[in-house]
């Protein structure tokens, strides 16, 4: 048995108590700093007062979580990055899953081909097989830039799982894995997709921002939904075809 029994007592009661005392000390100090900076902020007023007030609020929050100032700098940098890019940079990982009313072998065969993925993946425009388990991927970002990279299969268990990753020096360092698990009572197959993009940390080194912004759990979910629609219904639904322009009102 690997999981810890819920009634098991921790052996290190003393150590726990010590770290608890330390946390409480830290909490008190942070709270004091928060109150102090708030008082200064109120006396100062103006823009700098406002900024200091905000800092005081942050300290109060950190005090409430008992984490003190540790990690504040990193949080500020990440916050700025998030504001600027609308997204996280650095390593991105997404997973999504869907149940498809088809057998694992049918789904595996579609995915193993790789070249058919553009039919279901929103941002991928083409995938070509280049031999020896390698594939060349082309993507289009939402603002029309094109990206390409080469990937190789790193694991392949027929009808169960496929894993791949981009080769050294790719513009978009990426790896992914898809698993096909039979659903209970013949309800088809549970498909689990994991995608990792190891974009270098920091703004300037990142791949085109619009591409980064297009990477999300939602996109992964949408792509899996397309996979399901294609495998079950044979086509993707298209609804909102707006009449190009009304040719003029009749009344």
């Amino acid at each position, binding site marked *: 048995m690997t999981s810890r029994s819920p009634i098991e007592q921790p052996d290190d009661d003393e150590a726990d108590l010590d770290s608890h005392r330390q946390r409480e000390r830290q909490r008190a100090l942070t709270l004091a700093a928060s109150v102090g900076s708030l008082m200064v902020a109120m006396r100062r007023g103006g823009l700098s007062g406002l900024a200091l007030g905000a800092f005081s609020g942050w300290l109060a929050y950190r005090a409430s979580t008992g984490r003190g100032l540790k990690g504040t700098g990193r949080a500020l940098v990440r916050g700025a990055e998030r504001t600027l890019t609308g997204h996280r940079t650095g390593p991105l990982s997404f997973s999504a899953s869907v149940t498809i*009313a088809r057998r694992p072998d049918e789904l595996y065969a579609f995915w193993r081909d790789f070249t058919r993925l553009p039919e279901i993946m929103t941002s991928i425009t083409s995938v070509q097989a280049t031999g020896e388990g390698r594939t060349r991927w082309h993507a289009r970002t939402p603002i029309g830039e094109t990206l390409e990279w080469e990937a190789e299969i790193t694991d392949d268990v027929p009808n169960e799982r496929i894993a791949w990753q981009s080769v050294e020096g790719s513009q978009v360092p990426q790896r992914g894995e898809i698993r096909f698990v039979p659903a209970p009572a013949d309800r088809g197959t549970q498909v689990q997709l994991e995608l990792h993009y190891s974009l270098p940390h920091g703004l300037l080194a990142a791949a085109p921002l619009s591409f980064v912004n297009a990477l999300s759990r939602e996109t992964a979910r949408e792509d899996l939904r397309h996979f399901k629609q294609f495998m079950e219904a*044979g*086509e993707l639904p298209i*609804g*909102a075809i707006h009449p190009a322009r009304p040719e003029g009102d009749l009344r």
Partner: protein
Amino acid sequence: MKAVCWHGAQDMRVDNVADPQIINPRDAIIKVTSTAICGSDLHLYGGFMPGMKPGDIVGHEFMGEVVELGSGVTNLAVGARVVVPFTIACGHCFFCDSGYHSLCDNSNPNAGVAEKMWGQSPSGLFGYTHILGGYAGGQAEYVRVPYADIGPMQVPESISDDKALFLTDIFPTGYQAIAQCNMQAGDTVAIWGCGPVGQFAIASAKMLGAARVIAIDTVPERLEMAARQHGAETLNAREVGNTLQIVEALRELTAGRGPDICVDAVGLEAHGVGLEYWYDNIKQSLQTQTARPIVLRQAIMACRKAGTVSIPGVYGGIADKIPVGALMNKALTVKTGQTHVQHYLKPLMQHVENGDIDPSFVITHRMRLDQAPEAYRMFQARRDNCIKVVMQP
């Protein structure tokens, strides 16, 4: 072609728009011969449903002639005369396989939006918000019908448009409202709302063997139709009074038991009297709730212990002050959902063919498609005893 387009609350126009085209292999193009305005179209007209865009073609009750087929449709021929279910369903997912076509997994291209609102997405619908796919509707000269190999059903020559048209929505919707309630011998069914869906629910309750049907509405002509067409007992809610008085009246009418099955065929724009109505009206106009769930409250309060509340009436978002205590302590069952039209189409067509029912009884007005704006105004105001408008392009 000409099409009825939504341009905002209280603003339907007949626009000249591009003809639809085959997009997917399983598509068909239908030349519409008859189309009707549904009570649920009034929710769009009133501006109560989110997810509409100006220029959207509305209409989900239509039938016509196949004029073009995609390469994947082999069981229909050009020239076939068909009725088209308002629920768009792929026919191959878990839900379609189980007969829950209005819950099709694959037909809503905007499923992600619906998931954010409701947790999971139901099927796409014709002409009924972008949350449900943004499909162009059938109040038009032509319409594109997806998954045409499993949706449209051929109409026998002997059955006129008037008799077949309501198989698209309101007949199966009224029928499902009763069929899903596991009705037992001797059961009394109370039906709120004697609009078209209510009328078909009343007819279906009689057809399926209800001992008594009590019809509730505020419009005398509609109650009169329920009594005349189906022999229902009637209750004018406006005369009876508020929620407590209606619950009491139903308790008296059923010798203390309460109706075994209570059907809310009204939905989100219910009317009522007094404080309760104004409370809901104000909350709805402030957009702190999307429905006036007056009828739903009455149905839950009136229902017999261990009875069933069935909701064919349309709701979109959230509602306030639902008597959840009554729901729980009386051990009620709730059955609801958009209609699994594909599932009921065949047996109900058989009923029409056998002459068990003539669905054309609900038609009160016939107009040209050009006159749609006037038809919407009239239907909304229930002017001229308007219950059902059928339009010919």
